[in-house]
């Protein structure tokens, strides 16, 4: 089913398939390995690097040996809390405490001064792909993480939005032609390169515009609430 909504995603194979059709090499899988590498590279922070290549995610991790492995694509912690199903460790059950990277969260000017929010420093540290607890957290305890991550799947490959297809296809064609210069002319190669550059710029600007609009709407909501609904606005003004 074709789903061309904002969040519709496609696989890297879909991009490879499109590029192979453009290049008329659809009857061979000789270059598929290389194509996937190029597509992953171009779709991520080494290529497009749009705002949508980084997203907010949530997951559950399990403590083992005083540490827990961070999920694939992890970039920056937003907050962590213990899960409520830690039956064997009732002391950690439903702890009304959110551990945050205070320096990161308050960097934008937000007031994070509440009794239920605690700085993660003193509880755990993040080091080399692991959350390492300072002590007192037994094996098997699960925690929920909210974090910023590269928009990747469980294998670490970039998740590709449908709107990336044209840009990535052009990039794959350009790279393939670059490698097989004797078979393609300079004009065709340059055309694909220009298309890739133009599409990359467009996608970046689209993401920036969407981000701005989202922020703007949130600000407008708060402003409207202040005017029409003082009780609702109270939560923002406390």
């Amino acid at each position, binding site marked *: 089913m074709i789903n061309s909504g904002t969040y519709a995603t496609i696989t890297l194979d879909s991009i490879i398939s499109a590029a192979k059709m453009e290049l008329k*090499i659809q009857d061979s*899988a*000789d270059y*598929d*390995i290389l194509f996937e590498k190029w597509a*992953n*590279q171009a779709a991520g922070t080494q290529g497009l690097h749009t705002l949508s290549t980084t997203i907010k995610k949530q997951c559950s991790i399990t403590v083992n040996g005083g540490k827990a492995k961070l999920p694939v694509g992890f970039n920056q912690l937003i907050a962590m809390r213990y899960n409520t199903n830690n039956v064997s460790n009732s002391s950690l059950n439903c702890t009304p405490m959110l551990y945050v990277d205070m320096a990161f969260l308050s960097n934008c000017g937000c007031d994070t001064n509440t009794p239920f929010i605690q700085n993660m420093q003193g509880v755990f540290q993040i080091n080399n792909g692991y959350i390492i607890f300072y002590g007192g957290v037994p094996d098997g305890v699960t925690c929920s993480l909210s974090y910023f991550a590269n928009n990747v799947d469980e*294998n670490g490959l970039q998740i590709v939005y449908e709107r990336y297809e044209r840009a990535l296809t052009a990039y794959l064609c350009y790279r393939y032609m670059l490698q097989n210069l004797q078979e393609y002319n300079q004009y065709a190669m340059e055309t694909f390169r220009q298309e890739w550059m133009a599409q990359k710029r467009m996608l970046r600007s689209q993401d920036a515009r969407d981000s701005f609009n989202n922020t703007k709407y949130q600000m407008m909501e708060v402003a409207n609430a202040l005017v029409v609904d003082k009780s609702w606005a109270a939560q923002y003004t406390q």
Partner: protein
Amino acid sequence: MLEKEIVERISRLPFAGVISDENRLDGQYIVSLMESARAQIAKEVYQKNNKRLNPVFYQKYYPTYSEQLQEAKTYVKFSCPEVLTLDSNSDGLRYIGTTDCSVAFRRIWSRSMLSTINKHQVMSVKGNRYTAALYDGSAQMMEIYGNAEIEEIMIEALFANPHDIPTWNADYDPYPFPDDLLPLMDDYIFRSITSIAASVQPETRNQYNQTTPRRR
């Protein structure tokens, strides 16, 4: 056309269509010439025709899984007959994948490439993220990486010898060569036969004359 029809057609070529038991060419010899001609013509047509070949050239091969062939747990081996080379970038292997044609396995060209890609985090086949195929031409084996459970595959290729494919029956199935290219094959084989004939020096009067005259 069936193989025997092409053999009959070619065997009449040097004698303007009229043959007898005395001048009839050996059938096996002609089949051997046909295979060489087919390979040569496929290569020429592929390179001239924007890397396209008539699908008649290709044959499907369904290798049988054999426990005795297996040597390691990381890959599965299947027998695969010799395939032709089309140009510097591609050989005659067109499709290696599942029997329902839903997944084409990615190609690994050599053991050196296998070693190289396994050093790269995205391209590596070690994580079983995708299935890949390596054709070992010298051993005539197909090695499938990334899926140690696989027991059925299909290979569509331009095989060097059509007789190597068990599902192809020379008596009933058309020879994997398009009819419209038969004149090219005629020409190729005719040249081969006549060049051999021309290279054999007959006993002529001149040869007799070259001997040293007797003295009386």
